[in-house]
C-alpha cells in the first residue's frame, strides 16, 4: 500500500509538471477555442484552407476571416491596455471609430456628401481622424484618471453621444467618398496581393508589442493595475499611465474607424463599428486577461479577437440568418465564459484529478500483488 502511494505520487509529479505547465499557460484557453472553431470549419467546409488569387487579391476563408477581424483586433489592442491599467473597460470604442472616420470624411469631402475629389491630402485627413480618436480617448482618460469615475461609466458618455457627434461632423448625413484611392486603406493598394486591412492590423499589433515590450510601459501598466498604492510609492504616476492608456486606446479605435470606413467607401456613423466594444471586451476576456486589471497578454487578446471573428464568420458560413446570429453567438459565448470561469476550472480539475487517481489506483492494483 505504501509502495503504491509512492508510485502514484511519483507519477503525478513526473507527468504533472509538463502538462500542468502547458495547461496553466494563459494562452492555452483561447488557442483551444480557436482550434475548435477551425476544426468545425474544416469539417463543414472542406475548402477552408483553400487560398486563391482573384482580382489580384488573396481570397478564401482564412484571408476573409483575417480581413474581417481587422477592426476588432485593432480595437481589442486598446481595450487590453485599458483593462490592464484600470480594471475597467471602455465601451465607447465603437463610437470613437465613428467620430474618427467622420473627421477624416469631413477633411476629404468638405461639405459635399458625395464627391470624387479630395479636398485635402488623404494623409492629412487620416492624421486629423486619428487626432479625433485621440481627443475622445483623452476625454475618457480625463474622466477616469483625474475625476476617478469608473471606466465603464465614464465611457458611457461617449458611447451615448459619440455617434451623434460624429453625425454632426458630417452635416447629419452619410457621406460617400468616391475617389478610388480612398479604398487603399480598407481594401487594397494596387499591386499588393494582400488586403491592406491585414497589413494595417499586423502593423498595429507590432507597434503595440514594441511599445509594451521595448519600453517599460507594459510593466508600469500591470503594476498600476495590480496595486495602485504600491505603484505610487515606487514613484509611478498612475493617473498619467491610465490617461495614456485611454489616449492610446482612442487612437487605435481611430485607426479601426479609418480602416472600416475606407473598406466601405463611406462614412456612416450609425453603422461603423456598431457593437464592436462588446466583441472587444469578449476578446480580451477570451485572451485570458484579468478583467479586473493587472497582468495582460497582447498575444492572448489578438488570438481572442480572431476567435470571436472566426465564430461570427463560421456562423454565417453555416448559413445562419443574420437575425438568428446573435442567439447562436450568445450560446457559444456562455459556454466559453463558463468554461473559463475559476469555479468551473477548479471543479473540472478536481474531477480529472479524481478520475486519474481512480485509473492509477486500478492500474496499481492490477499490476501489484494479487490478493
Amino acid at each position, binding site marked *: 500500500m505504501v509502495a503504491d502511494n509512492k508510485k502514484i505520487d511519483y507519477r503525478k509529479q513526473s507527468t504533472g509538471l509538463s502538462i500542468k505547465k502547458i495547461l496553466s499557460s494563459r494562452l492555452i484557453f483561447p488557442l483551444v477555442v480557436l482550434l475548435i472553431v477551425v476544426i468545425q470549419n474544416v469539417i463543414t467546409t472542406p475548402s477552408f484552407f483553400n487560398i486563391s488569387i482573384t482580382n489580384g487579391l488573396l481570397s478564401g476563408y482564412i484571408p476573409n476571416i483575417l480581413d474581417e477581424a481587422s477592426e476588432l483586433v485593432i480595437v481589442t489592442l486598446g481595450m487590453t491596455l485599458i483593462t490592464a491599467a484600470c480594471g475597467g473597460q471602455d465601451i465607447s470604442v465603437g463610437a470613437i471609430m465613428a467620430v474618427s472616420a467622420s473627421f477624416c470624411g469631413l477633411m476629404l469631402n468638405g461639405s459635399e456628401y458625395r464627391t470624387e475629389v479630395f479636398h485635402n491630402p488623404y494623409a492629412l485627413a487620416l492624421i486629423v481622424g486619428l487626432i479625433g480618436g485621440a481627443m475622445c480617448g483623452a476625454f475618457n482618460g480625463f474622466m477616469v484618471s483625474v475625476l476617478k469615475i469608473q471606466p465603464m461609466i465614464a465611457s458611457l458618455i461617449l458611447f451615448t453621444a459619440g455617434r451623434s457627434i460624429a453625425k454632426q461632423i458630417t452635416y447629419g448625413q452619410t457621406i460617400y467618398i468616391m475617389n478610388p484611392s480612398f479604398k487603399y486603406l480598407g481594401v487594397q493598394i494596387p499591386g499588393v496581393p494582400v488586403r491592406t486591412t491585414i497589413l494595417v492590423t499586423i502593423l498595429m499589433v507590432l507597434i503595440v508589442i514594441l511599445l509594451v515590450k*521595448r*519600453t*517599460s*510601459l507594459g*510593466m*508600469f501598466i*500591470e*503594476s498600476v493595475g*495590480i*496595486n495602485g*498604492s*504600491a*505603484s*505610487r*510609492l*515606487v*514613484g*509611478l*504616476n498612475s493617473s498619467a499611465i491610465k490617461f495614456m492608456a485611454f489616449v492610446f486606446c482612442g487612437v487605435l479605435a481611430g485607426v479601426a474607424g479609418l480602416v472600416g470606413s475606407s473598406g466601405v467607401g463611406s462614412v456612416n456613423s450609425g453603422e461603423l463599428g456598431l457593437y464592436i466594444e462588446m466583441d472587444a471586451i469578449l476578446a480580451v476576456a477570451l485572451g485570458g486577461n484579468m478583467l479586473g486589471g*493587472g*497582468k495582460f497578454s497582447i498575444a492572448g487578446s489578438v488570438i481572442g479577437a480572431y476567435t470571436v471573428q472566426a465564430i461570427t464568420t463560421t456562423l454565417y458560413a453555416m448559413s445562419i440568418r443574420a437575425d438568428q446570429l446573435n442567439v447562436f453567438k450568445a450560446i457559444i459565448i456562455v459556454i466559453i465564459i463558463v468554461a473559463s470561469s475559476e469555479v468551473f476550472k477548479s471543479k473540472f480539475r478536481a474531477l480529472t484529478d479524481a478520475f486519474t487517481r481512480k485509473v492509477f489506483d486500478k492500474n496499481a492494483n492490477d499490476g501489484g500483488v494479487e490478493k
Partner: protein
Amino acid sequence: MDTIKNELSSPFLTMTGIGKSFPGVRALSNVDFSLRRGEIHALMGENGAGKSTLIKVLTGVYLMDEGSVTIEGKPVVIRSPQDAQKHCISTVYQEVNLCPNLTVAENLFLGREPRSLGLISWRKMNKQAAELLQNLNISASPTSQLDSCSIAIQQMIAIARAVNTNCKVLILDEPTSSLDDDEVNKLYSLMRKLKAQGVGIIYITHFLEQVYEVCDRITVLRNGELVGEYLIENLPRLELVMKMIGKELEILENLKVEKDESLFSEDEQPMIEAQGLSSGPSKVTPFDLKMHKGEVVGFSGLLGSGRSELVRSIYGADKTVQGKLFVNGKHARISKPLDAMKRGMAYLPEDRKADGIIADLSVRENIIIALQTRYGLFKRISRKETERFADEYIKLLSIKTASRETPIKSLSGGNQQKVILARWLLTNPSFLILDEPTRGIDIGTKTEIQKLILKLASEGKSIAFISSEMEEMLRTSTKIVVMRDRHKVGELAGKDMNQEVIMRTIAGGESNNGCR
C-alpha cells in the same frame, strides 16, 4: 467618581477563560474580562494583543474555542451578531457604517421604523428621533441627510442608534481616530451621559490621554493573554505602557545597549532637515527633525502615535501642507514619491501587502520597478540586466524563491520584505525610511535585517527606522524620536536612550524626564 459603587456592584457581563485559535496562531488564551453597568472600561494592548479578537468573540463574529460568557450571572451563548443584539450588546466601529444618503431619523430607525396602519409613519419617526437626539444632546436635525453632518456627529448618531436598541453594553472601537479635539470632547460628554444611564461601555483606543480622561477601569492584553484589570487610579501611565509593551522596570535597568556611541556634531550639515513639516491627512503636528549621514534614527511611540505619518510626510507619500524640507542643505520641494526618490530617498512602507508588494508581478519585476521608474518609461533596463540584478539581490539577501520569475505573492512574508528591501537598495539611496521592516518576520530574518541596517549606516547612508520592538531600535539607532498622540514629544540620545526613559516619554504626563 463612583468607583466605590462600581466596586460593590457585581459585573453585568463577564467573560471567563476565553480562548480562540486560528490556524497557526493562538489569538486568545484564558482571557477574563468583566464589565459593570455604568462604567467606561478601556481595553488596551498593542497590535496583535487580542483586543479585536476578544470583541469579535463577544459580538458573535468569531466563535470562541473555550471559555464562557455570562450576562447578569446567567450563562449565554453568542453565535452571531444577531445573538449579540438580542443580548443588548452593540458595537460602533471606527468607520461609521450607516447610510450616508438617508436622513438622520431614517438611519436611527432603519429596520424598525415606527408604523401606523402598516405604513411607515414619518411624523412619528421624526418626532421620536428628535427626542432621542435631544435626550443625548446631539445637535443634529432628524430630517437632514446623514452625510451633511460632520464625522463626529455621524459617529454619535451611530452610537445613538446603538443605544436606542435598548443596549446595555456598548463597544466603541477606535471611535476617535478621525475626530479633532473638539469633536472628541463632544463624544466624551455623550459617553458620560450614557454611563450615567447605566450603559456599560467598552472603549478601545490607542490614545493614552483619552483613556485617562474618560475611563474608569483598564484591562490590558498582551500577545493574546490577560495582563490584568486595573482601576484607573491605580495604574499610572508609565506602568500602563510597560504592561502593554511587556517590560518590567527592573529588567529594563539591567538591559545594556550594545552599540557604538558615535554622536554627531550639531554643526555638521544634516542630510535631512525638516522645519515645521506637516502633511495633509496625517494630522501630525508640525515637527522639526535633523538626520545626519551614517545615522540611524529610531521612531518610537505606540501604534497610531503618528510615527508612520511623520516619515511618510518626509517621503512625500502624503502631500505636505506646511513646513520645509532640506536635503543636504538644499530646499527640497517634494510633492510626490518620485521627487523624494530623485533626491535619494527610499521608503519601505508599514503595510507590506497594501503598499509594498505588487502581488502578481514576479520577484524580478518587483525588484527592478523602483529603479525603472527612476529611469522613466523609455530608458528600459534590458531584460538581461534585470535578471542579473534580480539574481544578485536574491543571492545577497538570500531571498528564498523558486525562481526570479515567481510571483512575489507566493513568497513568505519575510522573503517578500527582503524583495522590497532589494527594490530600494538597487536604487542606491542615501536616505532610507524603513517602517516596521521586521514585522511578522521570523527571528533569523529579523537579525539579518538589523545587521543590514547597521551596515548601510556604516556606508554613510542615513536611516529612519520604525519598529514596535524597542530592543531592536535600541540596538540599531543612534537617536530615538518619541511620538505621542500625533506629537513629536522628544528626541533621546546617549545615556537617555534606554527603555525606561523612552517609556516615560511615550507615557508623558506625570513623569517628565527633561524631554518635551
